[in-house]
């Protein structure tokens, strides 16, 4: 390579410690050959490799899609499995690993010889989604090193099921123990592998948060208002929201009324207090929260829509992607951006809530469309009526490809006493000056 590029290569090698000089040279040479200006080429190479530099993480910080992760963990259990990989039989190893922050499953696609209790350092691992949660994947490019000395707690300590408050339950929990009040409960008949079963579904709450739960046994004597202490409940994740599963191996006790707890049924069975949107965005998914803000935008796709009668998908021109030409069912929805100055959030309103917020029913909207001879008229009308206004919503959030989405279950117009707020703010101001 031309000598005159040496300083640039020097600069790049310094900035990208983990990347070999020859890789950088090759990469730069290729871009220059394609007539990319040197500055643009350098910027592009930096961007390409910067993500590859190793990041040390703790188990509870792992996010799906992470690459080039370094971890120091202990193996809790490990199994050998023969699987069919693109026609070839391959041996993989899977199990669970943990550090002091949590545990997660792992799969090694190459042979590793490890035993439960081993402390290891994994370099250059990736994190992929498995059963809706993060799993460490050890591939060809990963390195595994057995550690003689480690700060990590002993395996007996790491495999104890943690006792957690509900707002602490997340991706890195597979089993938890906790105390919580049942605030919603219903029976549901399901068919599992040909057997009819009745299961219990509901919502539990403590002073920090609320979460959905499922019980595979009928929980004698448990009803709304009961406070439960449970151990070794399994946690499953769906779109970033954890749910608690009580099964045969979970021990469940009803807490006696005279026991002192930081909450009571009455204190947790209240509507959730509005949170700053910025805080909601930091979470993968949240169950039953509320936020208040201004409607800063009504997104395309709001208004009167048609759905496929078979699969409920939104359809255009009476043609469904999987069911062909169908007679669409008219529906109404609003997709809006709510913003409170700390963050902005996409909120979805179903027909019932859209009719409340918009102030017109589906029938009225349809007749509006008929009069105007235009399908866009409802969307335009919504934009001019709603943009800028205050709105409060309660519901669940989930993180999908496009970011965090809030699915509303109820809506209201925030009506805090302005006079009181102004006085409180003036009081706070005294503290500033």
């Amino acid at each position, binding site marked *: 390579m031309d000598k005159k590029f040496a300083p640039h290569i020097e600069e790049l090698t310094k900035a990208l410690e983990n990347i070999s000089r020859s890789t950088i040279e090759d990469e730069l040479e290729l871009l220059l050959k394609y007539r990319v200006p040197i500055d643009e080429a350098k*910027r592009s190479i930096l961007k390409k490799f910067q993500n590859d530099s190793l990041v040390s993480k703790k188990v509870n910080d792992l996010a799906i*899609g992470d690459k080039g992760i370094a971890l120091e963990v202990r193996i809790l259990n490990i199994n050998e499995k023969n699987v069919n990989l693109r026609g070839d039989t391959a041996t993989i190893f899977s199990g669970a690993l943990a550090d002091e922050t949590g545990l997660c499953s792992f799969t090694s696609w190459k042979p590793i010889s490890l035993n439960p209790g081993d402390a290891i350092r994994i370099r250059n691992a990736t994190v992929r989604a498995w059963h809706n949660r993060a799993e460490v994947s050890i591939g060809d490019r990963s390195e595994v090193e057995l550690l003689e000395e480690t700060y990590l707690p002993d395996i007996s300590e790491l495999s104890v099921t943690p006792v957690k408050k509900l707002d602490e339950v997340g991706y890195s929990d597979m089993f938890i123990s906790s105390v919580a009040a049942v605030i919603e409960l219903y029976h549901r008949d399901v068919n599992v592998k040909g057997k009819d079963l009745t299961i219990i579904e509901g919502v539990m709450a403590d002073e920090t948060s609320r979460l959905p739960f499922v019980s595979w046994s009928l929980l004698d004597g448990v009803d709304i208002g009961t406070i439960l202490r449970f151990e070794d409940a399994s946690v499953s994740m769906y779109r970033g929201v954890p749910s608690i599963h009580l099964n045969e191996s979970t021990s469940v006790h009803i807490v006696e009324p005279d026991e002192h707890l930081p909450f009571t049924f009455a204190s947790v069975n209240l509507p959730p207090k509005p949170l700053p*949107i*910025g805080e909601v*965005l930091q979470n993968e998914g949240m169950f039953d929260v509320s936020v208040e803000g*201004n409607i*800063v*935008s009504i997104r395309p796709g709001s208004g009167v829509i048609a759905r496929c009668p078979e699969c409920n998908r939104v359809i255009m021109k009476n043609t469904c992607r999987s069911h062909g030409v169908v007679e669409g069912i008219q529906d109404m929805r609003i997709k809006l*951006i709510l*913003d*409170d*100055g*700390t*963050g*902005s959030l*996409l909120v979805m309103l179903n027909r019932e809530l859209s009719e409340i917020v918009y102030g017109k029913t589906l029938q009225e909207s349809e007749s509006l469309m008929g009069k105007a001879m235009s399908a866009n008229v409802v969307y335009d009308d919504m*934009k*001019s*009526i*709603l*943009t*800028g*206004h*205050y709105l409060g919503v309660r519901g669940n959030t989930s993180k999908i*490809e*496009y*970011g965090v989405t809030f699915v509303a279950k109820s809506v209201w117009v*925030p009506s805090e006493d*302005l*006079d009181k*707020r*102004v006085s409180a*703010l*003036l009081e*706070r*101001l005294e503290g*500033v*000056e």
Partner: protein
Amino acid sequence: MAGYVREVSRRIFAQEFRESNLTFKDGDDQYSPQYLLTPTGAKVNRLFIVGTLIEKEDIGTDSEYWRGRVSDPTGSFMIYAGQYQPEAAQFLAECETPAFVAIVGKPSTYTTAEGTVLTSVRPESISLVDGATRDLWVADTAKRTLERIKDLDSMDPNVIKAKEHYGADNTQYSSMVKEALRSLKEDI
């Protein structure tokens, strides 16, 4: 890849917005978002304003180009909407003044020959609201501004940058917030 995150709409009073003159980019790509950094350390790529539209004028020569003035308790925002802001331009063409309006828009700056930086707002949308919404906005903006003033002691890089550029004295902004809140008291 980190997912696209919509820029939050900041709440800024007109006085602070007018006195802002520091713009910067996050990253060196030509498509990196541009921000306006205000004296209390707000990093603004989008803002939400509710105020009174008191003047409007079509200053375009060939095509329509609307200028509007929106007042809040501390001063006024200049807004400019042309052919690339069709919805906002249409609103300005049709509306009456005075009127309570809610505006979502991007900050824009212009440096004069003398080197003075003028700030204005390029609206994404303008819509009519009522007086109660306007009063709530003033209270919200007071709260957010107060939070930023309180955070001026933090080690946040934006706050440090703002203090270096505008100076560390923030008494004028706490008295601005106070005036704005008092004006609400009088209205009630």
